[in-house]
């Protein structure tokens, strides 16, 4: 990258370049102001000497050359016009009157007339008007010293101002650069801390709602989101490890006892227990993998238009014997003709998991109800039971993996049933939520016709 491009990218460089442009502009404007002023002053001097010449001629109208000489003498005596000097010569060039000591310029305006006066004899420059009069020449001159003084003042002023501008600009550029770097350093130091492993760090905000503050807010939100996802991943892996440790330890103990068994019967019993334990572990893995698989396939789900009413009724029939065996009242209230698009087996599993939950986590003889309604857009499936519900603090975690609530703690299971329910629902573009805590009710909504914006429905629970 060349240096102007590099300077353009840094704040200091950018502000410096802008300052330089302003200074150059100020210089150009100063120059114009100087020229205009200078020109105006010169014209004013011309005007003065012309007016004075005319006045002298009027005063001496009748007196001829001698009249003019008298008028000049009178002017000089009164010094009424201090900055004007006069010279009246005859045709031979002899001075008749006046204090101006110079060669007589040709008739007309003379811009730079070198002269000196009788008072101090210093060389001066004047602007002069030479007029032919009867038998001689009249020269009226105005000293340019005042003009030069104004020119000098103007020049000093312009250069002082632009120098100050340049100084202020460069200082400003350095200052702005420093402030910007300091503000970015806040973001940078947070990022460095996060790279170093402190994921809880966030960028400090000053509440000013400035662009930097807003950027900090956005970055913080992004960091929060990432942290949540990472917490979930960490939680899931910790849970998996934790959930596996207990059964694996039990399995190991059972195998150990089997190898130390006193008799074949004892050995058989221990081995059978070990097999059950291993089967449980495999179930857990299968369930986890299935959730992961369904999560990954929402875009390429086997979608067929299916009679959801019939499926729900079939599932109700399937579970009715188990419900009635436990002395439960199983109420099924299903709206007819509700269709959805989806994978029949996955939807079966979703309903099965909900009914399994109701059966397993409530005491015998607890009433369970299964309701299917349709709104304009969605099929709404509600599975409710009259058993002990869940606490409000447990509700947010119900659809996450390995969640065991108070009501499920006493029964065997992995805490994956509702996670699978939520996963299947969102894979179909729908959603699962707890519609009631006590008594417990889960509500599933599935779109009645396939929507295409499924991809945005990424569940928060991993």
């Amino acid at each position: 990258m060349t240096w102007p491009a590099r300077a353009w990218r840094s704040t200091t460089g950018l502000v410096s370049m802008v300052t330089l442009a302003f200074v150059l502009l100020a210089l150009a404007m100063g120059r114009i102001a100087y020229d205009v002023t200078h020109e105006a002053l010169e014209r004013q001097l011309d005007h003065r000497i012309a007016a004075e010449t005319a006045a002298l001629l009027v005063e001496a109208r009748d007196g001829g050359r001698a009249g003019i000489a008298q008028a000049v003498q009178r002017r000089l005596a009164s010094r009424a016009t201090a900055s004007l000097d006069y010279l009246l010569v005859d045709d031979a060039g002899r001075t008749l009157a006046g204090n101006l000591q110079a060669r007589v310029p040709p008739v007309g305006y003379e811009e730079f007339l070198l002269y000196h006066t009788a008072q101090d004899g210093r060389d001066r420059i004047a602007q002069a008007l030479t007029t032919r009069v009867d038998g001689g020449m009249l020269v009226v001159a105005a000293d340019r010293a005042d003009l030069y003084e104004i020119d000098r003042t103007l020049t000093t002023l312009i250069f002082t101002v632009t120098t100050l501008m340049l100084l202020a600009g460069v200082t400003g550029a350095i200052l702005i650069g420093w402030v910007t770097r300091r503000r970015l350093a806040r973001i940078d130091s947070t990022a460095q801390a996060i790279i170093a492993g402190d994921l809880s760090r966030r960028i400090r905000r000053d509440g000013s709602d400035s662009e930097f503050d807003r950027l900090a807010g956005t970055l913080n939100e992004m960091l929060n989101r990432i942290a949540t996802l990472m917490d979930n991943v960490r939680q899931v892996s910790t849970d998996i490890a934790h959930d596996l440790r207990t059964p694996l330890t039990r399995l190991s103990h059972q195998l150990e006892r089997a190898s130390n068994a006193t008799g074949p019967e004892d050995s058989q019993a221990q081995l059978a227990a070990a097999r059950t334990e291993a089967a449980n572990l495999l179930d857990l893995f299968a369930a986890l993998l299935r959730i992961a698989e369904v999560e990954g396939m929402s875009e390429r789900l086997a979608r067929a238009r299916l009679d959801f009413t019939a499926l729900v009724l079939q599932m109700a029939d399937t579970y009715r014997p188990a419900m009635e065996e436990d002395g439960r009242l199983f109420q099924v209230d299903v709206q007819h003709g509700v269709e959805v698009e989806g994978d029949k087996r996955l939807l079966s599993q979703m309903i099965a998991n909900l009914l399994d939950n109701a059966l397993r986590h409530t005491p015998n003889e607890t009433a369970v109800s299964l309701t299917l309604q349709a709104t304009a857009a969605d099929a709404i499936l509600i599975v409710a039971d009259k058993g002990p519900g869940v606490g409000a603090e447990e509700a947010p975690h119900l659809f996450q993996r390995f969640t065991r609530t108070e009501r499920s703690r006493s029964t065997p299971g992995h805490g994956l049933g509702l996670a699978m329910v939520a996963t299947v629902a969102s894979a179909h573009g729908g959603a699962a939520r707890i519609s009631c805590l006590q008594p417990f009710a889960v509500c599933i909504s599935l779109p009645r016709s396939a929507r295409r914006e499924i991809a945005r429905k990424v569940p928060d629970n991993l």
Partner: protein
Amino acid sequence: MRILLIEDDLQTSRYITDGLAAAGHDVTVGCDGPTGLAQARTGGFDAIVLDRMLPGLDGLALVQTLRAAGNTTPVLMLTAIGGIADRVDGLDAGADDYLVKPFAMPELAARIHALGRRPAPRALEHRLAVGDIELDLLRRTVSRAGQRIVLQPREFALLAELMRHAGRVMTRTMLLERVWDFDFDPRTNIVETHVSRLRTKLNDGFTNDPITTVRGAGYVFNP
């Protein structure tokens, strides 16, 4: 039965071979796809047990090649956990049954047994009769010794499945797949509760139970 096992994992292969040999089958092992295909083509097997993931030629392609060549030996395909679409793919390719690893030996034995003596499909047959029980698939009626028995749809489907395979063990998973179309195992014992109901209805007024529970394996409809 003469069974060809095509499986590349030695431990799995030994486990299956031992289990099937113990059940009285004669097992030949093929270790990779091309070898397995060559062995399958020589024929003479009553059933093929095929791993889906094989070196050289995968299970799906092997079945397709075999079927394209007109070989109709029943094939049971094995696959690792996962793969919701795998089962459909396997059956579409021409496999007759599909089993997810890991599985229990009785499950595999029951499925091979069911495969080996799979009756030729008889489209016109709509009546099943085993012992004193008759089932009409068209009219969806059941009677025992001429006495009408009213069954729920799932109970009817369950009885039909058991009667179709009378004399052979039907495992829980086989029944879940075929009667309920479930590719998962619900935590509620829905098969048990349905068999229990079916028994109650069938045996009302009779002393002998046509359905026998095989512990650790499944159910058999007694011929």
